[in-house]
């Protein structure tokens, strides 16, 4: 299945792109997908997404098809979905 990911802020820098469409062999839950994306982009990316136990970090906001997700519910993601990963920013 194909999923489009969008990244903001430090995640976009760590991924080297603000948007990418990735192919996954089978349907999986959101946190399962995050694990696979973290594997692809390595530790400089994954430190903004998952903690050492594999749970989402508390400052990560995830939106699925335009709506923020309750990460505790770990919803299933269907092919063609768009997953937005949002990390905090500030000013200066």
């Amino acid at each position, binding site marked *: 299945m194909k999923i489009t990911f969008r990244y903001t*802020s430090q995640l976009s820098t760590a991924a080297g792109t603000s948007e990418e469409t990735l192919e996954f062999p089978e349907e999986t839950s959101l946190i399962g997908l995050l694990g696979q994306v973290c594997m692809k982009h390595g530790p400089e990316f994954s430190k903004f997404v998952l903690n050492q136990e594999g749970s989402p970090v508390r400052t990560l*906001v995830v939106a699925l098809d*335009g709506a923020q997700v309750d990460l505790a519910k770990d919803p299933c993601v269907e092919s063609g979905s768009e997953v937005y990963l949002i990390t905090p920013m500030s*000013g*200066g």
Partner: protein
Amino acid sequence: MLTEEDRALYDWQLDVPGFGEDGQERLRNTTALVSRIGGLGGPVAFALAAAGIGKLILVHAGNLRKDDLNRQILMRWEGLGKPRVQSAAETLSAFNPRIEIEVHDENFKEENAADLVKGADLIFSCAPLFEERFLMNRECVRQDKPMIDCAMYNLDGHVLPILPGQTPCLACMFPESPPHWKRRFPVIGAVSALVANVGVMEGLKLTAGFGTSNLGKMMLIDADRSSINKIDVKRRADCQVCA
């Protein structure tokens, strides 16, 4: 009632559908607090002054440095080494002397938070430190004041309009400071001005009561792809600030 001078000054925006004399009058009777007045807060204050806000409270400690000048558009070259709020007040007064301006050469902190928020109707969160942002969020929730959170990094930004008790607060979105954030980060002045002006539009719509509300949404601005995406955001049932 608007004066003849008000009508002359704001002639081009009085015809904006839904805004009109009523919206202009509401703006004139509004005080906006802006913390701080750098890359985000500077263009926020400038756009509010241009729109005819009644009063600006500008909060920012410290003296102007050369590396501020790529984005802090209220500043002046001759202001280098002098308080930033001084440059900002001079720039805004020269631009529109009818705007009342109150400056504080200090940052938003525990000791001044309650008084600063109390004196304002609309608050813009533009500070670099998450501690300042969370404190401002907490105080706005406590006093039930609308806050527009504006933030940036590199070519990205977000704007989150917050109506306490009705929409997610900043702590609903981000319950703690991000551990990997760095105080100095890459940004171009045009990006900070873009994000700031999206934030000002939310504040103007909220205050003057016109246009399409984005309450309950976070706007994500991508200056690389020139896109603004919106996501529906949720209040956190266990939010330490607003639940």
